[in-house]
């Protein structure tokens, strides 16, 4: 197998494993930048996957080819509404944000499987008829070498993920809204003094993370899993959380980390066919994302600084 062939068997799967992680990790960046820790990303993805699949099954006939796109939009909206639970608990009720996030994970899985059994009478849904399909990007696919690697057999959602990461970066770092959002996460009292509504900003940030988590979950469901059960989303949300931290709470960093995790996953799946890697036991590739995150946090790969007020409920008038 030639070098390019090897790359061609690695890069497209890496991109499609990474896309859901990128969406969800971006959501994590928004939430944590505003000072709300979001362990519930996993649960938000579960909700997104559930809604995406159910909508696709229910309205596939009506919308035809547009179904997957409408499904992910609906999943975004519902997950965003669902994430308000986390916002209410951790912003208004001053709950421990980690605990509330854990509850979100339990709740999403419980609700998802409960409703699946309720509506389909069994533990998992049917396979969807209208998933996303891979495409060859017009024109660009004909570029020699690069076209083969990056524009053939790809999902449009992978490009959407990368584009959204840049949009996220622009919003967080180049707009007044982004500045406010970050200031609320660094020093809420100073932000409050400047007339920024801390609670409103945090609610918005959590809802953005809900929308993006739902997007990530539904994209995963409609590109990889194709149905919903209790084992559809197992750890992708936590992996996204790792990407947030490994990417140092920066949208582009999180994207890079998610791409890297996607690569590791893709390698673990296809390693047996790749020279050099065929002798590496799969387990090393499976644990690589987690080990690297620990190393990153321990400062071996540059210091990772969390937003200052991350995880602290803001209580008006307290110092």
């Amino acid at each position, binding site marked *: 197998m030639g070098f390019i062939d090897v790359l061609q068997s690695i890069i497209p799967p890496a991109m499609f494993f990474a896309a859901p992680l990128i969406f969800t990790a971006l959501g994590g960046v928004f939430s944590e930048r505003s000072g709300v*820790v979001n*362990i519930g990303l996993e649960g938000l993805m579960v909700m997104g996957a559930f809604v995406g699949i159910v909508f696709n099954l229910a309205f596939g006939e009506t919308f035809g080819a547009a179904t997957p796109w409408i499904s992910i939009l609906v999943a975004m909206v519902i997950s965003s509404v669902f994430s308000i*639970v986390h916002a209410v*608990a951790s912003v208004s*009720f*001053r*709950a*421990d944000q*980690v*605990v*509330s996030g*854990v*509850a*979100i*994970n*339990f*709740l999403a*899985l*419980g*609700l998802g*499987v*409960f409703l699946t*059994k*309720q509506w389909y009478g069994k533990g998992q849904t049917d396979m969807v008829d209208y998933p996303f399909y891979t495409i060859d990007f017009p024109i660009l696919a004909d570029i020699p070498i690069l076209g083969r690697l990056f524009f053939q057999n790809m999902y449009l959602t992978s490009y959407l993920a990368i584009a959204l990461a840049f949009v996220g970066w622009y919003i967080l770092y180049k707009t007044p809204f982004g500045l406010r959002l970050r200031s609320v996460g660094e020093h809420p009292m100073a932000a409050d003094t400047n007339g920024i509504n801390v609670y409103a900003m945090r609610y918005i940030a959590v809802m953005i993370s809900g929308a993006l988590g739902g997007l990530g979950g539904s994209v995963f469901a409609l590109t990889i899993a194709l149905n919903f059960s209790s*084992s559809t989303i*197992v*750890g992708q949300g*936590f992996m996204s*959380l*790792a990407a947030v*931290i490994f990417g140092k709470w920066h949208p582009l960093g999180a994207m890079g980390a998610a791409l890297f995790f996607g690569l590791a996953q893709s390698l673990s799946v296809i390693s047996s066919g790749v020279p050099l890697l065929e002798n590496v*036991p*799969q*387990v090393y590739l*499976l*644990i690589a994302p*987690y*080990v690297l*995150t*620990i190393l990153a*946090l*321990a*400062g071996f790969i540059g210091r990772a600084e*969390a937003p200052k007020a991350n995880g602290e409920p803001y209580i008006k008038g307290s110092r």
Partner: protein
Amino acid sequence: MYSNRFFNIIVPVVSVLLGLLAGAIIMLAFGYNPILGYQALWNGSFGDLYFFGETIRQVTPYILTGLSVAFAFRTGLFNIGAEGQVIVGWLAAVTVGLTIEAPMIIHLPLAVIAAAIAGAIWGFVPGLLKAKLGVHEVIITIMMNYIALFTTNAIVRNVLTDQKDSTEKVPESASFMSNWLMEATDYSRLHYGILVALFAAFIMWFLLEKTTAGYELRSVGYNRHASNYAGMNVDKNIILSMVIAGAFAGLAGAMEGLGTFGYISVQSGFTNIGFDGIAVALLGGNTALGVVLAALLFGVLKIGALNMPTVAGVPTELVEIVIALIIFFVASSYMIRWVLLRLKKEGK
């Protein structure tokens, strides 16, 4: 005004009631009879000897993971890693059970201790990183969970067996199972591990409330800086707390490996014993007695739920929703306090 002690008891009770109430509303909304549903749940856990035995069997690891999370909480640490510690403890217990030959009086304690040590090591890493580098233990323990899951699966498949999905059963000399208990409970999987779990709860109470070391651990949990000023070694206490928490969770793994199952198999996902331990600890107010009671409640809910689909037609996942809501209400205790104080004022 209400005392703090009063709130520590009333908040969990109110949370459980609210959670069950919400569950009843959900059942009503989907056209089930909530009374029939909860009756099925009750009968499914206490209805006959078999169900009772299974409930106690489920309570056993819950007590231990609950203690694990609660112990770390008392030192101001959040141990989400109980899950991974359970898995490595399970692996260590079964490994010792299968590879060593010895009379029961040596073999069983050895396997149990191996599980505790494995869990302790899995707790030591996040403890060390937290103490020395200030890295948040929540993230590290989550990552450690996945590392535990994947490496354990690889070891089961490649080291303990020859590409098989589960190991042989551990010999009787390293097993908590007892024919007597099984026969007494209509052949449930009840085993002697419950005694270990209750003893562990006693150890936690004694250690935290009656010893100097426990005083230091709690003190670090209340105020790190004051403890440091008072001459306590904060770093050492953080590491010690995570190590002990890990050992408790490792013991929970031994309960599964030497008691309930008697072997270890390749896991496609997490066991959830560790994650449920978080709920147990929160509801139990992070005290030893509270954890035992909360573990009992969750054991009843989980095992009783298995009876709900056949008798009342309600999917078992209803219980997961109830548990999630209970966690929410406990976490939002600020709200419950506020409402109670309001009611009290208006009553006057």
